[in-house]
């Protein structure tokens, strides 16, 4: 019995009541009396319950209420009072375990098992009897009943007030019956207007936040001076900080070209550094390396650096357009827009 899994209060009650029905099936003559019992008054129920609890001694000890109720009925005198539905307190009391819940130390466990062996069923029954004595609930005093009535009336009133307040807002009804209603209505009106105002402001602020008052990028077209400023084999790094480019004068497929390389690693987007001594671009994040012309050769970078559009402007200066990129692996480096032949 003790190893039955834990049940909620509702379960226990349901089980106790259905167990009763089961017991009834075993003893069919009592069906009528049970029906009578359910209809009986509150006080009658209580006394009946007390009796039942006292009778359910044999099995109630370890918590199987249904069984307890059933056996109690089966063994005890089959009276009308027994089959009457019992109140919650007595059922729960019968369901409670006789042992203390929670963890048990070794010493406790040993003593308990010994106790069980010694005393056996009789002592358990005695314990159960002790446990099952539940004092009757005193009748509810008059002032409590009155207070409860008042409270319920008040709540109904208040709800009405709210309804009326809304109606008044639409211009349907007139003034409230009492001053309380008026106060409430004003309060609600102020509250909702304030809430609406705050929400509107908040929404506007969010919209404004989406358009910050900054220019995030330098102009996509810019000039980097005359073509003569870039000697053969030179990697000009001074535009990297501002524009994110290297201007490189190098050979590509045997042609000397002036190109603008985008300073973003094609592996994961870090900014590589130009190492003059080793004549390569090297990424500090995962060690990708590129030749001077931007072709990847070491580390995990899967493709060459990208080129930006470059041309000679009307005034003879080199002009770079960052709005267009050219990728070698797509065969775009043949496009005359991405290099200036030197």
């Amino acid at each position: 019995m003790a190893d039955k899994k834990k049940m909620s209060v509702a379960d226990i009650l349901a089980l106790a009541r259905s167990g009763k029905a089961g017991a009834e099936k075993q003893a069919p003559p009592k069906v009528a009396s049970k029906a009578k019992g359910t209809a009986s008054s509150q006080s009658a129920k209580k006394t009946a319950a007390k009796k039942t609890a006292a009778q359910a001694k044999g099995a109630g000890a370890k918590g199987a209420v249904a069984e307890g109720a059933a056996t109690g009925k089966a063994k005890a005198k089959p009276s009308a009072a027994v089959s009457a539905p019992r109140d919650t307190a007595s059922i729960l009391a019968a369901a409670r375990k006789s042992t203390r819940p929670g963890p048990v130390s070794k010493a406790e466990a040993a003593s308990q098992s010994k106790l069980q062996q010694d005393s056996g069923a009789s002592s358990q029954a005695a314990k159960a009897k002790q446990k099952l004595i539940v004092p009757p609930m005193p009748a509810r005093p008059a002032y409590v009943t009155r207070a409860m009535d008042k409270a319920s009336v008040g709540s109904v009133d208040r709800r009405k007030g709210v309804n009326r307040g809304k109606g008044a807002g639409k211009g349907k009804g007139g003034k409230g019956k009492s001053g309380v209603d008026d106060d409430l209505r004003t309060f609600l009106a102020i509250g909702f207007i304030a809430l609406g105002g705050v929400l509107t402001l908040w929404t506007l602020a969010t919209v404004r936040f989406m358009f910050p008052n900054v220019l995030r990028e330098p102009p996509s077209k810019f000039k980097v001076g005359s073509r003569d400023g870039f000697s053969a084999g030179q990697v000009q790094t001074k535009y990297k900080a501002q524009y994110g480019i290297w201007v490189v004068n190098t050979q590509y497929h045997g042609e000397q070209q002036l190109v603008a390389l985008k300073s973003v690693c094609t592996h994961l987007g870090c900014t590589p550094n130009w190492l003059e001594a080793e004549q390569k671009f090297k990424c500090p994040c995962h060690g990708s390396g590129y030749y001077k012309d931007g072709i990847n050769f070491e580390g995990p970078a899967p493709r060459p650096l990208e080129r930006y559009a470059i041309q000679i402007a009307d005034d003879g200066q080199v002009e770079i357009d960052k709005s267009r990129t050219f990728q070698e692996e797509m065969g775009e480096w043949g496009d005359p827009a991405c290099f200036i032949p030197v």
Partner: protein
Amino acid sequence: MTHGITDAQFFVMVSSFLGPFYLMLALTNGVAALYLWQTGQSKTWFRSPAIAGQRVAITNVLAWLALAILFVLLAGFSSSGNGHWMPALPEAWREAINQSTGPVVYSAGTTALLVLLYLFRSFFVKPAVAWSILNLMFLMLGLSMTDRDFYEIVAKPDNVPIVMLIFLLAFFTWLATHRAVENDRRMERGEPPLEKLDNEKVLVWPDLVYIELICMIALVAFLIFWAIALPAPLEEPASSVKTPNPSKAPWYFLGLQEMLVYFDPWMAGIVLPVLVVVGLMAIPYLDFNKAGNGYYTIKERRFSYLVFQFGFLEMWITLIVLGTLLRGPNWNFFGPYEHWDAHKVQALSNINLSDYFWESWLGRSLPIAAAGSGMLEKIGTILVRELPGIVMVLGYFIMLPPLMALTVFRKFYMRMGFIRYMVMANLLLFMASLPIKMILRWVLNLKYLIAIPEYFLNF
């Protein structure tokens, strides 16, 4: 951190750490000796040769006491702050260690070490052996601290947690393995595991809650002390065009960053991490071995143990340690005592499998779609170009699981059924793909098996 100070100043700085450090070690060993002696656990290891007709029994108490005295002496010398007196590793040793280490030696070495620790675990978990190893680790740390380059890396506030992690991990691995070995031994004799003996329950309130409260307070105190002692390392303002060199992820992601060296970003940054999480979530559903529930054991869960230790210790922790302590500027590998030279040149030229296949083996250029050809033709050419890699990768993931089911994992397949087995096999293969890719990179300089940069598909 030590820039702009002379060697003498540096030694004074280090001595302020090393003195208390060695004293702490001496104290720990002394307390250990006292504890063993008082609880009557002293054991005679061997008897010394006769000195003046007396053979002295060398017990563990005596050994730890001697070690404590040695540490006291070291503390004295270290506190001097004089470079000539401070105990340090010989220059030749450090040079040899620098020369011999590299990604290959490091990874292969840690793997070999793990295998050794596994095979001879019943020896390594003996308290005396484990205690000696722990002392040796601390001693190595202390001796290495006088090296400026080593100090620079280890004492960086960012890296201090990694050093703590190494020691903590060693301790907890020992603890679990020790209990597992003991349990395996007990179960061989038909006795219940240790955890089953101690089944006395304690109350949540107050026992557990009090312990938790005390732990909480101690931890907060430790964190406050840490925050005061090692200020957070703030760097220059961020700039989208300037990446610090080396640029490192938070320490717990350094394993991933190391993976990124060998894989394409979408693979090492998205697919593999997601598979790690999914795989960990799938373990309860894949595991059919009911043994080992509630107690430590290795023998009853050999496969799970090995896979987990490999995945965690080898693929995660050692890569974090590698990424934190041994990767320097330009993500080059630097030995523990090597100066972080931003201009260190390492030959790392990598070649795709398609280049190998078409150019080296077939002796012709890569197939390229004619200029102006249609989309379909371009894709077709790319697929032909990458055919060897595609065949290899598909073969790896499609052919291997059935083959393994027929051979090594026959029993697993019978117990798990088709779907569970396939999930497990594919997760295993994905895990194995990282070391395989690392080895291919080291041995063949292979960049990618499938390289389709046109569509960001590289494997």
